[in-house]
């Protein structure tokens, strides 16, 4: 059995709005994040990702359900494991009038760690030279890097990053992704919450997709994409004839532009042979791999149309 670094069972979070009406942010979420690798935590805005992370970190109280980090019940025993967890929740939050270094020094002193680790963390995130500037003068990218530096003060075994590339320019995004990969390769388990599908697809080894506060799918990124890896795109001189032949042969096919798209689990050579038997010669045949985006949109179609979890109980 794989060791789980994060485990939630039936996790639920309800809020009361200003009129006293109940709003459900997380509705019985079962989350299991195995040790090692980068685990994507994917969901549309308002699907409950940040609320789940905040509950795991003791910043919000769960209405119901249980949570475990490294097999330890949280939030009751969170102090026992907090030193092993680095986290950036939503936007980085530091004291604006302190320098980046001062902010890190205060956190290092809270941990009781050596101040020399502050230097190392600043160097790791390439903030040397700007560390004595006030935090409020930092660009968004620098703020994100400082937040990651703060997580490194602990030498964490688990890193929880909530939308870490939000608002960053392409160079900043690449930098953060490289940092995540480096940390993962050094043995740190990373939970990467994001609504940017390409990011999850590029960086993550496994993922959980949630919508309306519920888990919709979970597994390795490869497994999640497999169900959709069964269509073929065929370029052919007479696409209408090809569609007729394939339909008669029992395939599900349709014309898309000047090409034909076939949904099948059978190999492409079978499809090409069927067409060749009717004197229809394939110019090119490409397996269409469904990307995470289409899979995600398929899964969360109801959520995005339904307007979120409000009012459910």
């Amino acid at each position, binding site marked *: 059995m794989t060791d789980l670094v994060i485990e939630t069972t039936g996790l639920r979070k309800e809020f009361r709005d200003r009129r006293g009406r109940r709003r459900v942010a997380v509705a019985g979420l079962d989350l299991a994040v195995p040790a090692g690798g980068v685990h994507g935590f994917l969901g549309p805005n308002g699907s409950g990702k940040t609320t789940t992370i*905040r509950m795991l*970190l*003791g*910043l*919000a*109280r769960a209405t119901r359900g249980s949570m475990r980090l490294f097999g330890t019940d949280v*939030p009751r025993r*969170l*102090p026992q494991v*907090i030193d092993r*967890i680095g*986290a950036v*929740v939503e*936007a*980085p*939050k*530091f*004291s*604006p*009038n*302190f320098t980046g270094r*001062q*902010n890190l*020094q*205060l*956190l290092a*002193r*809270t*941990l*009781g760690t050596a101040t020399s680790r502050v230097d190392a963390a600043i160097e790791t995130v390439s903030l040397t030279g700007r560390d004595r500037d006030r935090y409020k003068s930092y660009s968004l990218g620098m703020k994100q890097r400082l937040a990651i530096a*703060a997580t490194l003060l*602990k030498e964490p075994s688990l890193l929880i990053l909530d939308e870490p590339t939000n608002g960053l320019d392409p160079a900043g995004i690449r930098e953060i992704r490289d940092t995540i990969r480096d940390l993962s390769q050094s043995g740190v388990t990373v939970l990467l919450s994001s609504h940017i599908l390409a990011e999850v697809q590029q960086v993550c080894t496994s993922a959980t997709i949630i919508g309306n506060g519920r888990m919709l799918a979970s597994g390795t990124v490869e497994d999640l994409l497999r169900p959709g890896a069964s269509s073929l795109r065929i370029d052919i001189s007479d696409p209408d004839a090809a569609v007729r032949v394939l339909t008669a042969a029992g395939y599900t096919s349709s014309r898309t532009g000047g090409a034909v798209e076939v949904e099948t689990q059978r190999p492409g050579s079978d499809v090409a042979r069927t067409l060749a038997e009717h004197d229809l010669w394939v110019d090119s045949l490409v397996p269409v791999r469904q990307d995470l985006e289409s899979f995600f949109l398929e899964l969360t179609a109801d959520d995005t149309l339904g307007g979120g979890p409000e009012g459910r109980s």
Partner: protein
Amino acid sequence: MIGVLRVELTRLRWRRAVLVLLGACVLVPAVIFAVTAWNTRPVSASELAQAEQQVERLRHDNGYQADIERCQRRPQRYGVPTADQCESQMGPQVEWFISRSPLDLRHVSRGLGPTVCVLLAGLLMLMGTTFAGADWNSGSMSNQLLFEPRRLRVWLGKAGAVVAVAVVTSAVVLAAFWSAVLLLASARGIDVPPHLTPFVRDQSLRGVVLAGAGSLGAFAVTMFFRSTVATLGILFGTALVGSLLLAALGVSEQWFPHVNVGAWLLDGVRYYVTPPLSCRSASHLTRECRGIRFVTLRDSAAYLGFFLAIAVAMSLAAFRRRDVP
């Protein structure tokens, strides 16, 4: 716990607003002392000579001479027993032209001393508020809790830092203020009444307690509301209109905030009420019939302590239970 306290003391020390307020804690009493020293300075020889000249000028004034002559004709009309006393009793005196009073230690101990205590408490309450409010306004509280999730410790660490700074600051400033006042009195040859030193010592100690408790209360309220603005609204509302509102509602003066703060610093204060109807027929005016009531030191301690306990309890409960943004 000590580690958290140290971190919070450092955080407090690094906040500019806190440093400005601590500077004000030194500056305001220093200005009060300087103004008091200036306003009670001894009369100089030149000032005395100038006053004497003015007296002489007035004595040669025609109107004055006419007044004296009228007095000498009918002294009783001017309230003077005999005609030869008219000049001495109606004549201009040097004191008329020297309006300054000498340093009055009783006035300082019952007026300026408590004022300094209240101002210090007010400034240190602002310090407690701004310190807690900055963490909430910047959102850095959540980041701090990611490093120390034991919320009780965090609350106590921050509160401990605020109270420690408030107590030390007010103790040092009050000691310096009174040392300066007593040195000034000694330099001017003014005797210090024997009862004054223990009175001032006790008042200063209570001033230190007021500053510490006030800063704790303001910190607790800010931690509850998570907003500096809300706390400042409550503080200023209480200070400016609290007593007026209570008076408008017909609440007895003994429940007024400023009366209780005064009673705490002055070891009890008296206030007045309308005497009961039964007193109208009383032949002897008792204290009750004169409408005099007292708020004792113990009363004020209970009153102020009650509100502090409520603020601390609510703040702690809310901080431990509520979600942190």
